[in-house]
Structures are given as C-alpha cells and as structure tokens.
C-alpha cells in the first residue's frame, strides 16, 4: 500500500468517512469513535480519541507506546508502528481477544492524518485545553486544518540562537490566561563585538507562558541525544504514555499528579504528585497519565538515543533510572 492509497468510505449519515487499515476499521458518529478488528470491537468518546490521535500524529508515534485508552493504541518501532487492541490489557490477553498489526510508519501516519482531518470539526482544537476550545461532538461541521497541522517546534541547538527556533511574541503567541502573572523579562546580553551570535539566552518561562497547546513536548535545547522537551499542561494528558526507556520530568511550575500503571498489564503501581522544583523519573516498564488542575510548565527530559530500546531489551540498560 502506498501513502496515497488511504482506505476510506463515502461520508456516513453524520457526514464522517470511515477508515480501514489492515484488519482494523474505524468509524465515528456524533459522539463516539468505533473501532473493530477480527476478534473484537471498541468504542471511545470522539473527544478522547481525537485528542490522542492528534498527539500520535504530531509526535510521529513518539517514544514507545501511545495508549489511547486501556484498549487501543500504537507502539513505535521507529520505521514501523504496531497498532493494537487489548495488547496491554491483562483481561484481553487472557481472553485472547487482543490483536496487533505492524505497519510501515508512512502508511499508518497517512491514515491517521486523514482520519484526524476528516473527524475534526471547525472550532475544535485537539491541542487546546477543554476550556479553550469548542466541543468535538455533533455532525460533520467543516474542518480545522490549521490547528491540527501546526508546525512541530524543534530547536536544533537552543531557542533564540540565530537561525534556530525564535522566542514567542504577542504577534503570534499571546500569554495564556493562566500564565498572566509570569514575568516576561528576557536575559540581559552583553556580547563583545563579533560575538553577537554566540552569546545566547532567552526566557524559557516566558516562552512557555505563550504556548498555545497543551500536552505537546517540543524541543528547546539539545546536548547530543539529551533533549529538553518542555510542555504546558492543563486538564488531562490525552494518552497513557508507555515507556520504552526511562523518561524524566522536571516540574517547572505548579502541580501535576501522575497516575502510573504497569506498562504491560495496566495494573496500578503509584500516584506521583510533582510540584514546582520536583524531579522524578518514569521507569521504562510503566505507563503514565498526568492530571494538571491549573496550566503548568513541565520539562520532559528525553534521551533520544536510538539504541536505548534495544539496550533495555537485552538487559544492557535498566528500566530504572538510578541504583541507590
């Protein structure tokens, strides 16, 4: 199958096309998304599904597993992607109702993008907090292409460095209502003549106060494979992220509570409450979902080294952050 051949039907009574990929079939109505596969079927709120789908598309399947809920999701193999139902759900596994198929990343990406485009109505922004967007429900009502195809911000060295990602200003990124009190002063730079391009600093907190998306890590600084991927969080992370490596969080402002479950079974393991200044690791054998009552600033710190999943699989790297 090539990227241009997306299997879809004509619009249904509610105006939405249905999509197929492998033996999976997807359709939506006014409130719900329906998924079926050879051994079962599943229903999710269109709200939950579209917010999760948006992250999966925007992050190009991210690191490890993106669980849309306790049943459906994707696993990134960096070149191919597994789409699964019930695979990380103990009861589905026992009942042998789980199903997994592997696709070239291009094929699943294009199908997911087409589904996101067709099922997102005008006025609904899957990246926005629920307070900042219209509802996703109802019959087909236009589209919101600009919101769902935002350019992914990814600094090559650091935000503010000449030629790299630039700081945000009122012209394009007004300060978020929940960050109205965040100081907007920028660093004072005194470069000597000739070093104007090499004496670089910016206000990360001001930059984040102007983010127009939630739960969307984007790279601001790069030390080889060490990536600072801060993000602003409000309401609930639309996915349960299943780790294929250790991931670290630095809570820069306010508070998030993480619900942590076993990655493979979904069994609860811990609740981690992080407040400003707290640092914690998410082990490589869990899945996690965050709750942020007020918009907060979270620094997600990733090691993007492509060898890590294999090192963990072969026991050369631990799923735990440090030994003490």
């Amino acid at each position, binding site marked *: 199958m090539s990227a241009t051949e997306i299997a879809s039907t004509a619009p249904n009574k509610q105006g939405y096309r249905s999509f197929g990929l492998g033996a999976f079939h997807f359709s939506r109505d006014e409130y719900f998304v329906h998924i079926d596969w050879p051994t079962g079927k599943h229903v999710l709120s269109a709200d939950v599904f579209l917010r999760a789908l948006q992250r999966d598309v925007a992050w190009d399947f991210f690191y490890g597993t993106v669980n849309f809920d306790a049943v459906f999701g994707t696993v990134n193999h960096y070149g191919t992607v597994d789409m699964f139902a019930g695979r990380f759900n103990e009861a589905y596994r026992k009942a042998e109702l789980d199903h997994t198929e592997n696709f070239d990343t291009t094929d699943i990406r294009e199908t997911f993008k087409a589904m996101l485009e067709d099922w997102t109505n005008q006025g609904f922004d899957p990246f926005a907090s629920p307070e900042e967007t219209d509802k996703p429900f109802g019959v087909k009502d236009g589209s919101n292409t600009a919101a769902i195809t935002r350019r992914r911000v990814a600094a090559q060295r650091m935000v503010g460095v000449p030629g790299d990602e630039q700081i945000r200003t009122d012209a394009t990124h007004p300060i978020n209502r929940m960050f109205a009190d965040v100081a907007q002063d920028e660093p004072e730079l005194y470069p000597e003549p000739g*070093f104007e391009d090499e004496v670089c600093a910016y206000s990360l907190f001001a930059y984040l106060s102007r983010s127009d998306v939630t739960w969307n890590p984007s790279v601001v600084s790069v030390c080889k494979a060490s990536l600072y991927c801060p993000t602003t969080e409000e309401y609930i992370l639309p996915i349960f992220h299943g780790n294929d490596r250790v991931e670290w969080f630095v809570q820069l402002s306010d508070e998030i509570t993480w619900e942590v479950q076993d990655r493979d079974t979904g069994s609860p393991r811990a609740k981690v409450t992080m407040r400003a200044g707290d640092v914690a690791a998410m082990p490589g054998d869990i899945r996690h979902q965050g709750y942020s009552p007020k918009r907060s600033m979270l620094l997600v710190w990733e090691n993007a080294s492509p060898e890590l999943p294999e090192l963990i699989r072969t026991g050369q790297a631990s799923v735990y952050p440090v030994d003490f």
Partner: protein
Amino acid sequence: MPSTSYTTEFGSLNAFAKGGIEIIDDNPKNYAFSNIFEVAGSSRPWEKVAVGKNMEYVLEVIRAEGTSEWRTCAHDEFPLVMDGEVTIELVRLERPAVPADKAGSVRLAGEPVGARMGRMVLRRGHQALLPAHTAYRITATAPSVVLLQTIFGDDTVERWADICLS
C-alpha cells in the same frame, strides 16, 4: 464569585512545597524523586549534584553563590536559572582545553586564554547556551539555583540516597 485569576507557583530556595509518591504496588526508589530547591539548599556552592541521569546524560543542580571557577567543556551545556540571578562570562579559548570526546565540564587552572565573548545576566526562568570549547565563569551575589543540562563528568556528584524519596 469564584476567582478566575491565577497564581503561577515556581518555588524557590526559601519556599518550595515538595510533592510525593503514593505507592500502590511499587518501590519509591524507582522514581528517583527529588526537589531541586531542597538539593540546592543542602549543597556547597558550585557543587554539581545530579538530580537526573539517563545513560551518560545528567541534569545537575548547582547552588550558585559567589564566584565560580573557570570551566570548559567539549560540548554545549545549557544552564536554566530556577531561582535568583547569575552573571555568566564567556571566553573563546584560543586552544581547546579538552579533547573533543571529553564528557562533562572540567575546571580550568588559572585564567582562560582567549577573546572575551561577553557576559549574560540571567534571572529565574532564563536558559542560556554555554558553547562548546568556551570558558565560562558564573557569579551570583545572592544564593541562586541553576539546573544544568550536560553530560556526566569528572565533577558530577551523585548522592541519590540523600536526595531521593525512598
């Protein structure tokens, strides 16, 4: 009438409220949970205490107080000021003081030899670039807190058992 004005909490050396872990079926050590301000509060000035580690990469908490030694590094590093105010001076070293594959920063003996690049004054929330093969020196007139994105080096301090919830 309920309020819709918001206060953003950043925490500081003198005022922070650490969160915690409610264990259901796990070991708290698996989360290596610490607090930057608490670590800085119990650190000597300029000590580089790891609060995050992923293979060779680390996040170091540095209590900035007074004037640091001159240091240099073969790769870029990125300080983020979490509390207070620091001034960073940069010098373009005439000759690199460390081999290209050296991980983490090293202390320079004496004054750096090279062109002065300038200085930066950073306050809370500001992130800076310390370019590879420059020399840098940090000053802070009042105790301040820096989080440094770098690689595990000769002077990285690990005291996980002291700083992490267990």
